[in-house]
């Protein structure tokens, strides 16, 4: 999961370089990645609970 944090360092770097569109796109892709991890966790936790 460390790479999700790492991607935010890239987002901050892109912001400082003022490549705003690239920064927004990378941040949105990271959001999808975070939702994917949430989905993975959701399904595996359900298995444990059930």
């Amino acid at each position, binding site marked *: *999961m*460390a*790479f*999700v*944090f*790492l991607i*935010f*360092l890239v*987002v*901050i770097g892109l*912001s*400082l370089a*003022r490549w*705003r569109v690239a*920064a*927004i796109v990378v*941040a*949105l892709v*990271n*959001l999808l990645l*975070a*939702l994917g*991890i*949430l989905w*993975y*966790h*959701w399904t595996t*936790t359900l298995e*444990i609970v059930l």
Partner: protein
Amino acid sequence: VNAAMRALNSLMVVAITAVLLAALSIQIFKGEEPCPLCYLQRVAFIGVAAGGVLNITCGLRGAHYGLSLLWAVNGAGIALRQIALHVCPQFPTFGVPLWGLGLYTWSFIFHSCLVLYVAFLLFMQEGTPFVVKRSKYTWWDILAIVVISFAVFVNVIVCFAQCGIGPCHE
């Protein structure tokens, strides 16, 4: 007005960094190992801050506020999911409670406050155009960018040390 708006964005970034560093200090000094959902909530906090950093560095834009809102709602949803996991009596509170509430409950409150704060910033923006031109950083802007970068970097190290490059497990 726009200088004040940028300062308010910097304030949001600094406040989020304070929350992240507080979570890190609890992890390091109280030996609380974060769960995957805890890390996801930290990621969401950083996502909200990323919108603020974009407002500081690239000028005030609606898309940057939109990015912050998306991450804040996502973070509140993740926190709500964790609250739901511990509602049943057979699943006790995860971690040491702070002032009677679990850290994930505080996370839900903070994310909800961030949604309201971004809405407040958008209300404040009413009547003044979004600034697209670049301007010089103030010391407050620089402080906000430096501290959030530091907090993200420390989280990368801590998360990598606990989980490696793969997914974190309970």
